[in-house]
């Protein structure tokens, strides 16, 4: 192998490693670390209580 081929090989190796590193780092940055159990805990809870329904039932014949 002559010098130019060595240079080409080193650049390709460098670029491959850089791409691999960037991909892994991006993946680590965007992947959620929450467990499925924690995700179920995060489901929102609506505290609104429609008391109009009770009022309407109350007005009906017993």
């Amino acid at each position: 192998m002559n010098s130019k081929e060595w240079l080409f090989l080193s650049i390709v190796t460098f670029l491959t490693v850089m791409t691999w590193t960037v991909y892994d780092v991006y993946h680590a940055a965007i992947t959620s670390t929450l467990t499925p159990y924690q995700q179920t805990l995060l489901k929102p809870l609506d505290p609104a209580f429609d008391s109009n329904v009770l009022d309407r039932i109350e007005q009906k014949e017993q």
Partner: protein
Amino acid sequence: MPEDARDISTLFEKKEVKAYSMAVFSFFAFAFFSVFAIRPTLMSFFHLQRQIEDSRELDQRLTDKINSLLRAQESYQMNQQRLALLDESIPQDPQFPNLVRKMEGIVTNEAATMTSFTTDNFSLLEENYLKKDEGLATVSFTLSVTGDYVRGESVLRRLANIRRIIMFESVKFDNSSNPLTNEVELSIDGRTYFFSHE
């Protein structure tokens, strides 16, 4: 100095070889350190940063949920006395005899006559007869009442206005049996609900 070593040192003295070899070693060195040092460090850094963000979000959303639960508990306590009304609308078991008694009471109260009452899928003698999957279950029924039109309409209005939820699938007024009188036969196909649980 041996001849080979002298050849290598002469080779590296060449400007072109010197430049190429520096570049090649730099790229290889950078790739090597990327794999064994830079990549793991950056991954740990971003992973931990993500973990901190997720933990903050989890904390915030759990705090919101606790506040929601407190508000829900407050609403529940405020309406606790009236929650029995929900059981009256959709009871935990069929409570069909109560419903029939109620219907009969309304019909009698309106001076009409209940001529027939049938259910498709329910036995009044065996309440456990109707065991279904957990959730909202229905009981279908057909009710026939005779009386004049105004009383029939009144029965219908009152049935629609009782606390136990009744859905009318069809309502029919028919006076073909006694066309010369003002007596009509009111037929109601309906269904009512209860919460079935194992």
